[in-house]
């Protein structure tokens, strides 16, 4: 039967090799996930509610003007090597990120607005801001131990591979086989209490199917990022639980409305007709979101309207009946007819300015769901007389097209954090490029009203409900402008061996995910199943495999010998 390496080991399949164990440099999701289990942040997101909750900081206070934040460091917290955690540690970490460009590589954004960070005393940390910001409590950058890191001269060169790596989280890293696995051990002194699993292993797989097969065999305990088909086939399997989480990501496409720099210089070669909002809206109306949910996600997704996924109900927005741009081909055709888009001889419409509606569509080739949606899109847009040139390309080609504004439609999607500031920020006019090719958003969107609302929500750091209102209004603008078009919130599907893990924590709860949490909850709270499978280093599968190999080899030798015998018997020449 299923055999895990050790009964008290939680093995997680990962599909991406770790880039680096240096938390100042690590950028890949897998690395940051591991770091979350190793380094406690100042403030964490709560497992159930996604609300900020204390980690290294026990509590915090804000000055009236919102420019000075004072954090109280948790009492009695220690690093895994026994040293106490003091305010010096976060102060060192943030200062490093502020002063050293290399150290700013991964999380520099978090401190971009910091003026000073000081450790007032061992238990008090003070942060002075340049501007007030609503995101002060999403400070989940890893805090590193000063006593270890103060000796590091070059943050860019330091690999952080002196095992065990000193941390403050529920686990400590004890080993790293590049491109194979990362092993962690439980930190018995973790302030929330030691995790139940003694070992946590992240094992690298290059292939999704191999991961699932390994899960079936019990080689790994947890697999994330299942395809709908895989989820379906694992559903109901004995010893396996499938976790179908509501999406943290939205999927959609952006339309090039005519790219401009911040100074208003036009560039790129987007289709001119797309400057017309009517056309953009008509395109939206030609899309059957239910069809996408069904065909692309096998039902494991929600048709989407607003920009913030439904799992964040504080910010979730839906259009009203009259605002809705629902699937209706006739309506879409009517809109176009009225707006003067006449059908040409070949059935393709021509804009009032005489441009044939032939649009390029760029799709990431390494995202199967976008590829599938792209294919459907091509056929749907044909229904309203628009020809789409499907360019399913490497990410590099796609981003070139995006940054040079040499595109018409691009499929995209963002993973949305509990705090929506960043994803909203990329659609402000500020995000437009200063000169062609340097934009930081993913659409050339610029709307004054939207920008006003953005500033307002940022300033409303002390009034969450008011802030949510602003955020919803912003989403309405996005929806109506139809430049950034959200079509689905795809579920996150994961599976784990319920015969190895009896329970674990999703985030948010309920409906949340296990892997890639804003925190370490799924790992630190996982409980081993009773009577976990033991087994020495030679697992049952291995023994069977060796036996099989021996049989095959013996058979082959026997065959050859037999052949030889018969051959000599009739030794002809």
């Amino acid at each position: 039967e299923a055999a895990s390496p050790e009964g008290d080991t939680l093995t997680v399949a990962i599909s991406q090799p770790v880039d680096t164990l240096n938390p100042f440099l690590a950028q890949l999701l897998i690395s940051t996930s591991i770091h979350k289990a190793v380094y406690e942040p100042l403030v964490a997101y709560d497992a159930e509610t996604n609300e900020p909750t204390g980690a290294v900081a026990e509590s915090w206070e804000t000055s009236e003007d919102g420019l000075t934040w004072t954090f109280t460091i948790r009492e009695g917290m220690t690093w895994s090597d026994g040293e106490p955690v003091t305010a010096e540690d976060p102060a060192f970490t943030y200062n490093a990120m502020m002063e050293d460009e290399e150290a700013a590589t991964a999380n520099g954004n978090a401190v971009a607005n910091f003026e000073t960070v000081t450790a007032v005393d061992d238990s008090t940390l003070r942060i002075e801001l340049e501007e007030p910001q609503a995101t002060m409590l999403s400070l989940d950058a890893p805090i590193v131990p000063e006593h270890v890191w103060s000796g590091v001269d070059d943050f860019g060169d330091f690999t952080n591979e002196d095992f065990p790596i000193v941390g403050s989280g529920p686990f400590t890293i004890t080993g790293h086989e590049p491109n194979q696995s990362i092993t962690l051990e439980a930190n018995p002194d973790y302030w929330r209490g030691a995790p139940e699993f003694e070992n946590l292993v992240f094992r690298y797989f290059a292939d999704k199917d191999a991961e699932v097969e390994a899960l079936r065999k019990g080689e790994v305990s947890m697999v994330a990022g299942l395809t709908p088909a895989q989820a379906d086939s694992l559903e109901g399997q004995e010893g396996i639980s499938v976790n179908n989480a509501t999406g943290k990501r939205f999927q959609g496409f952006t339309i090039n409305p005519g790219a401009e720099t911040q100074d208003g210089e036009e560039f790129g070669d987007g289709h001119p007709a797309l400057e017309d909002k009517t056309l953009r809206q008509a395109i939206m109306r030609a899309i059957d979101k239910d069809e996408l949910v069904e065909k692309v996600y096998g039902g494991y997704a929600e048709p989407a309207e607003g920009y913030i996924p439904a799992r964040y109900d504080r910010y979730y927005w839906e259009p009203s009946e009259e605002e809705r741009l629902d699937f209706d081909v006739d309506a879409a055709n009517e809109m176009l007819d009225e707006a003067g888009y006449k059908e040409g001889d070949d059935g393709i419409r021509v804009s009032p300015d005489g441009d044939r509606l032939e649009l390029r569509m760029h799709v990431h080739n390494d995202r199967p769901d976008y590829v599938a949606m792209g294919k459907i899109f091509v056929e749907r847009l044909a229904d309203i007389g628009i020809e789409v040139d499907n360019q399913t390309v490497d990410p590099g080609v796609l981003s070139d097209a995006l940054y040079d504004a040499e595109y018409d439609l691009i499929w995209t999607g963002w993973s949305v954090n509990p705090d929506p500031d960043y994803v909203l920020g990329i659609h402000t006019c500020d995000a437009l490029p200063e000169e062609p090719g340097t934009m930081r958003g993913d659409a050339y969107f610029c709307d004054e009203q939207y920008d006003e609302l953005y500033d307002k929500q940022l300033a409303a750091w002390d009034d969450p409900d008011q802030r949510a209102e602003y955020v919803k209004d912003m989403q309405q603008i996005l929806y109506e402008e139809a430049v950034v078009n959200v079509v689905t919130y795809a579920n996150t599907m994961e599976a784990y061996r319920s015969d190895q893990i009896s329970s674990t924590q999703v985030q948010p709860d309920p409906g949340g995910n296990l892997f890639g949490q804003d925190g370490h909850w799924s790992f630190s709270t996982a409980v081993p199943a009773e009577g976990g499978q033991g087994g020495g280093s030679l697992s049952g599968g291995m023994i069977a495999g060796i036996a099989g190999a021996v049989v095959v080899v013996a058979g082959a030798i026997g065959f050859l010998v037999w052949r030889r015998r018969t051959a000599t018997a009739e030794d002809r020449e």
Partner: protein
Amino acid sequence: MSAPAPSRRALLWARRRAAWGEFARTYAQNRAGLFGLAALAAAALTALCAPLFIDAGELAVTGGPGGRFEPPSGEFWLGTDAFGRSVLAMVLWGARISLTVGFLAAFVSVALGTVIGIIAGHFGGWPSDVLMRVTDWFLVLPSLVVAVALAAVLERSTLTIIVAIGVTAWPATARVVRAQTLSVEARPFIERARALGGGHLHVMKRHVLPNVMPVVLAQTTLLVAEAIVMESTLSFLGLGDPSTISWGGILQDARSAGAISSGIWWYMVPPGLAIALVALSFTLCGRALEGVFNPRLRERR
């Protein structure tokens, strides 16, 4: 032409027919070759006639007649894919692209390789050195890598795949053709042609080319097999043309859907088998041709 001319032409035709008959008879003695030929004929016929018995509309992602991942049934012999399209229909249809790519890519590379090989072999001296250096240089480049890079740079289309394969596969042909050219050039009839006053072009066209043709032909068939596998590899790596249906493309779809680990074998196995079968058929034909053209391989003590 004078009076006996037509009779000579008629005779010539008779001879050609007889030669073909002879060729066919020799070929027919190779059972594997016959099998390959039959399989190829079937594949080619399928590719040509696919539009007759498959409704292109049913191959549209929005027009799939079945449900999502239906297992094989009376209606869908090989089940359906994520869009409810019949996998059988897709595999049959995929023969069009795969065979086209295979043939054209092989043609491109064989044409390149043959021209370069003959020139290098015929002229010798520094032109040969230069050409062979270039060939060697191409030969050491990891072809998959170069093909991947080319396919990534150029616009995503079937033509790209053809070019990528064609450009990376020719050096082998060039070497083979050059070797063959050298051996042909060493034969006395080349000297006779020169002694008769024939120039370079005459020798290359009338003597070398016909004599390297068998090798080239056999090489082509073998290369087609290679090109088909290469096409599937590139498509599998996501470098194919998404708007067409090819075997490699189906495999990639199947893989990205996680078909293998989901027990949806009917999505994964048929295109792979189709690739293997067609590649095998070409290889068998190529070997049979080699055998026909090179009697030494055929009958040996």
